């Protein structure tokens, strides 16, 4: 899967989980600082990524991900 494709899907998941307009999400958006994710939503994001990409991520490491770009890089390792 191309990185651009992963990026688009990651943004879709984030937009759905955080209820944020996709246009407000940039590649370096921070889930908490820029998009206002709370701790519950961070867990939901991990679950969303796993479902979207059909992968099972290391939960502890996944929860340390802070930005869209970090998420893309992390997910790439599982694909």
């Amino acid at each position: 899967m191309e990185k651009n494709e992963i990026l688009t899907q990651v943004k879709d998941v984030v937009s759905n989980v955080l209820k944020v307009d996709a246009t407000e999400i940039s590649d370096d958006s921070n889930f908490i600082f820029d998009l206002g994710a709370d701790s519950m939503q961070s867990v939901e994001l991990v679950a969303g990524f796993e479902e979207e990409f059909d992968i099972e991520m290391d939960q502890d490491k996944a929860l340390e991900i802070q930005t869209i770009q970090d998420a893309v890089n992390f997910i790439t390792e599982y694909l």
Partner: protein
Amino acid sequence: MKELRQLRQENLETIFHPKSVAIVGTNNVKGTVPHDILYNILKADFNGIVYPVSPREKSIKGIKAYKYVVDIPDDVDLAILVFPSSVCHMALEQCGQKGIKSVIIISAGYKEVGEAGLKREQQLIEIARKYDMSFIGPNCLGVINTAPETRLDASFAREMPDQGNIGFLSQSGALCTAVLDYASAKHIGFSKFISFGNKADISEIDLLFYLMNDEETKVILMYLEEVSDGLALMDAAREVIEKSGKPILIIKSGRTDEGASAAASHTGSLTGADEVCDAGFEQAGIIRCDNLEEMFNRARAFAYQPPPETEKVAIITNAGGPGVLTTDAAISRGLKLAKFSEETTAILKKALPATANINNPVDVIGDARSDRYLAAIQAAFDDQDVSGVFVILTPQSMTDIDTIAADVARIAEGQTKPIYTSFMGEKDVASGIDILQRHKIPHYILPESMCDAYKAVYHFNKNVKDKVHQLPSLDNIQGELARKLMDKVKSNGRSYIPEVECIEVLGSYGLPAPQGKLATTAEEAVQIAEKIGYPVVMKVVSDDIIHKSDVKGVELNLGSADEVKDAWERIHSNALSAMPDATITGLYVIKMVKGAEEIILGIKRDPSFGPVLLFGLGGIFVEVFKDVSFGVAPLSREDAMHMLEQTKAYKILKGTRGRNPRDMDSIVDALLRLGQLAVDFPEIEELDINPLFVLDEGQGCVLGDARMILTTTE
């Protein structure tokens, strides 16, 4: 360092008196810290502009919210960060870019959670330095300023306290909420209320200096869990008390004695961290309190009433038993009962029934109503020998409790003498106590607490407030020689320095060395003994032997050449049979001192307060009797004398039961010199002088034995 202190003072002024506040990371979710902080600021009627900053919300509580702090079009004085710790540094960076200098970081997840948190905390400090910002926190409850022109409740406490003249600082946020609840029930108001959390930037010392200049604050209270820099805290406290006359009351929790048990010297094993803290606080004029009740009992006395001129009080009671209890409590705390003038007793005789006791303590009798109390209180206030009035009340069927409380409050107005009360009981006296508390009349459940509070205020005003901390100038200190000797003893990597060399070092600082010398042969020992005169003492000298008496390595009262030669053989034989591998350098031959008092002096280095001095009655049972006192070096002459006065040994040294008074000035001088040595040579980890022989008054003292432990991680 001074610049940073100045910067923090300027930024603290904005923290307490901002014209505009941004709450960065807030939200719309009730019951969460980010929400409740904003809510409290609004609820307190803050006299300024509030800017919610939230990544997601467009508005909060009807106020437009900004996505980033840099989006706010106006200047912002104070930012309160409530983001999770993982992104707080990003918010702080933006605050710096926005030109905000004053910040409160509420968020937890820093030093208190371990290494990763410590790194995050360091990051915050670096950002703050880059932009000349100062911040309180992280990991704190927040800050409250009750001044009407500001009314800032930047905390997530349940209620904003009343305005008052007590400044409260706490390292623990949770304790703050308990204190606020306690204070609310007793109508205790605060000027400033500050939870400073991890004190990563602004510390309790900065806050002490701020409250020193804060006109709203009359009394400073603090709860501390760790004293990071004891000497800095002592210096700050001295400055605050000297310049402002404000009392500082501190609860320092954690009264454990880590490290003392493993110490290699008497001083080390006797000097616990808590004793050092006690000594340091007392030297600096800080009033240490054991618990919140004691702290607020004293604080109310300081905050509500004028200080007493003398220790003489009048007790007005409607019951004999409580009067006696109060008298006992007063006398046992060093207070005195005032002696009424004839005029006062005449007034009391006229105003009170024949069965009343018109002498101090005045018993207005069980059926007394407010008129009798008022007459007695007024007479006591007017008596020149009275410096303070204690009013005791027990609830009897005819006692008009509320009226008496209201009248006590009224009569206390404008008085230059303090009045304290104890309405004894609970349910029936509750409304009366409430009246007293609302009118800022100190009330105490127990007469003992009342007397303790009076004593604390009296002692502070008489002995502490105007005390000048002046270090003495000491002559006959040969610093260069001491340095050379110290370099020499350190040269072979030893950490334990035995008697002979230790006494040489002490001698270079003007401490009186004994007459004597190291002998390496029996013949040489005899020569030395002949020269200094009999009787002599001989002691084994070996780097391997710390406790000489344990190996029978000391012989006293040797009166001839033959005794010296015999002792030479015995000491060698004893030492080598106890420690066959020990290398014996020789024997130390010194003049025997007779008829002197033996005391111990010592140095121990405390991780927080630095060099600590010990004084006590000496001898081999010093650790059994533990009649010792402590002081943080360098000492003033008064500090050193106070160390002596604190022990039971003081009475012995003063001369008791026909014994001559000893030369206490020489002990004070020895303590001052030892303190200077400890300050000048931080490599001295522990030092024992045991014994120091103290001769009769005017004849000085002589070092008996000494040893030193140097730090191995210089």
